[in-house]
């Protein structure tokens, strides 16, 4: 069979389809989005009856996947690294409940913050939850590890965390597929109290989870994803995890690495191999993408007895993603670069598209805010965060999904009246609704703009759970009907829109303004499809 050329994300998706997946649940987030998109678009997945849903947020995704696992089938939940913060509650507790059908949680980290607000390392969550972690170094491993991950999950009856990083998620390479495996039949858990985490049951199950740890370590030593390769020069031993292993190989194109190398693709760390390399080599160099997780584990708190190089001693930068050149320097080589960027080359930051409805919403907001001055607009995560940059410079915060509404409430409590929140429709259903309820209960003097473009724009236009029902949701939560104002963000409506926003800013209670106009990207796509269909008719 000819190889399939797939993104790392797509390799995971195809791996899941071939490994007998029954359901995948996710909230879009770069760099994880294409996993679920691939399965939603896959005819094969559809024919096999695989359920593929965008969910309200990452927490509901993991919970739904856990429910499918409860009923005996294989399930997957996918998210970006910060999504795992949202899903941390069900994720950590799922380690204690255990599973019935195989369960894999994929978390895609974004070191260097290409499209994120931090560069947290999901491996901490795996360690925290006492769960095994798989970390592929290339697209083929990403594909193969899904099969293994479901086996591992079902063998030990626990979820498995699958950690990838941006460069693997968004890089294509050839994949060879395995034979396809059937889905599980629906079955109830053998113990119908397994998932009831009352203290007495949770204590028993937690002891069971702790008791599994030596076996999980043993798996790490024998599964083949962690590999020890000997080398004649013991002055240095190299531990390379996930993608970092590729950058190591890149520096030895003939494959002649003189040092012992321990390649890490599975956690908990394989104690046997780590001890071997530490005992045999004078110095250890730890190469890992993301935070110095392995390095800190090896060093401990007082760990000066070992000579360990990595991100903590400055051999590698403490932050940002690795690359072949940084690894070359860590190995004692030189930094090789072409010519420097000429000084005339200026940055080209991302910007809102021409014709974007958000621009018109912000132009109206900026004008209505003039009388109050700058510094009062809390915003959220989405395309509309770009309004922080010139020319709009309209917003003053972007923290986490939903924080615009709650931060505006807190600031209003402190006396900043009026305080404004700007949030997108999809972000609102993800995590804004609960904050709005807080504000309504306190009768906070805040004005919330819910920018409704009927899609999840930044990640490429996935459906938004709130489309067509935002006003109803606000009404249901208790926002007064006369202070729910829908407007159409167009240049020709500017004066009227400014007036509406100004009226609501003046109202000393919760008001919601909903500028409603479809994203120009999804609109263009729809029109192209329509035109194409007309042509073929």
């Amino acid at each position, binding site marked *: 069979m000819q190889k399939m050329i797939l993104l790392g994300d797509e390799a995971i998706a195809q791996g899941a389809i071939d490994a007998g997946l029954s359901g995948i649940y996710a909230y879009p987030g770069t760099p994880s989005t294409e996993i679920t998109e691939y399965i939603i678009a896959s005819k094969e997945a559809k024919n096999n009856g695989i359920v593929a849903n965008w969910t309200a947020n990452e927490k509901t995704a993991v919970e739904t996947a856990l429910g499918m696992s409860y009923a005996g089938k294989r399930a997957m939940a996918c998210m970006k690294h910060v999504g795992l913060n949202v899903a941390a509650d069900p994720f950590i507790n799922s380690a204690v409940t255990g599973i019935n059908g195989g369960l894999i949680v994929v978390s895609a980290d974004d070191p260097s913050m290409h499209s994120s607000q931090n560069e947290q390392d999901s491996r901490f969550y795996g360690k925290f939850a006492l769960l095994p972690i798989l970390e592929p170094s290339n697209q083929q491993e990403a594909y193969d590890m899904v099969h293994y991950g479901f086996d591992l999950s079902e063998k030990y009856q626990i979820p498995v965390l699958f950690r990838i990083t941006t460069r693997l998620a*968004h890089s294509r390479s050839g994949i060879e597929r395995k034979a396809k495996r059937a889905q599980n039949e629906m079955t109830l858990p053998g113990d119908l109290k397994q998932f009831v985490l009352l203290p007495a049951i949770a204590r028993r199950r937690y002891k069971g989870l702790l008791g599994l740890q030596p076996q999980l370590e043993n798996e790490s030593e024998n599964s083949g994803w962690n590999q020890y390769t000997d080398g004649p020069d013991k002055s240095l031993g190299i531990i390379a995890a996930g993608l970092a292993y590729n950058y190591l*190989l890149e520096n030895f194109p003939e494959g002649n690495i003189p040092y012992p190398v321990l390649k890490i693709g599975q956690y908990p760390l394989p104690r046997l191999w780590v001890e071997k390399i530490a005992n045999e080599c004078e110095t250890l160099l730890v190469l890992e993408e993301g935070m110095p997780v392995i390095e800190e584990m090896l060093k401990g708190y007082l760990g000066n007895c070992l000579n360990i190089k990595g991100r903590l001693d400055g051999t590698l930068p403490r932050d940002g993603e690795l690359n072949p050149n940084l690894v070359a320097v860590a190995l004692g080589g030189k930094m090789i670069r072409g010519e420097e960027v000429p000084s005339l080359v200026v940055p080209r930051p991302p910007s809102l598209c021409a014709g974007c409805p958000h621009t018109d919403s912000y132009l109206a907001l900026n004008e209505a805010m003039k009388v109050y001055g700058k510094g009062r607009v809390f915003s959220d995560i989405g395309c509309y965060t770009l309004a922080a940059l010139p020319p709009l410079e309209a917003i003053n915060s972007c923290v986490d999904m939903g924080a615009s509404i709650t931060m505006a409430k807190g600031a209003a409590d402190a006396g900043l009246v009026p305080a404004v929140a700007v949030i997108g429709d999809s972000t609102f259903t993800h995590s804004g609704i609960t904050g709005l309820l807080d504000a309504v209960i306190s009768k906070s003097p805040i004005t919330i703009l819910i920018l409704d473009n009927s899609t999840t724009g930044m990640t490429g236009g996935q459906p938004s759970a709130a489309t067509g029902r935002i006003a109803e949701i606000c009404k249901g939560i208790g926002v007064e009907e006369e202070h729910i104002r829908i407007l159409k963000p167009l240049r020709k409506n500017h004066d009227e829109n400014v007036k509406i926003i100004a009226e609501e800013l003046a109202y000393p209670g919760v008001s919601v303004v909903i500028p409603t106009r479809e994203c120009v990207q999804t609109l263009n796509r729809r029109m192209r499809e329509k035109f194409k269909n007309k042509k073929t008719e």
Partner: protein
Amino acid sequence: MIMKNDIILAGVGGQGILSIAAIIGTAAVSRGLYVKQSEVHGMSQRGGDVQSHLRLSSRPIASDLIPTGAADMIISVEPLEALRYLPWLKKEGWIITNTKPFVNIPNYPPLEEVLATIASKPHHVMIDADEIATEIGSARSANMVILGASTICLDLPFEELEQAIRSVFGKKGEEIVHTNLSALRAGRDFALQHKNQA
């Protein structure tokens, strides 16, 4: 003999560099070569600078990223973007770039300075791909003109790239395939006449 092409594709979000990558990648795979291609998704796609690292080799490829100082060529659909990735280009590397600017920033430097800087590099092909694309009746295939110009440096047979265009655009109909093939050939012909080698 070992075949290896390390290519930086550059442009502005939405200009179609991934179509170029898909065609070169398809051609390379049909030749039995190894391919790795890293892309930029997410925030930068909104009119920001985007790049793709495309690696072809007769041997397995380790890193998804091309090391700095190691790229054989920069293929850019926008002149300012061609210069942004100079640290990746090796000394004898080629720049194949569109000369038509995409101005979506207020401080875009004077175009003649941008073009003069590119022209000062020893190996380059500068081509007004938009104009050539318009001449052949399809302004949207400027990226295929650039791809055509780059074929003079690629270690892939031209016919293989033509075949890749047929297979990638085949679903969109014979007309689209034909336009893109014309753009590809026009780009190559221009490059053969105008390549600069000091």
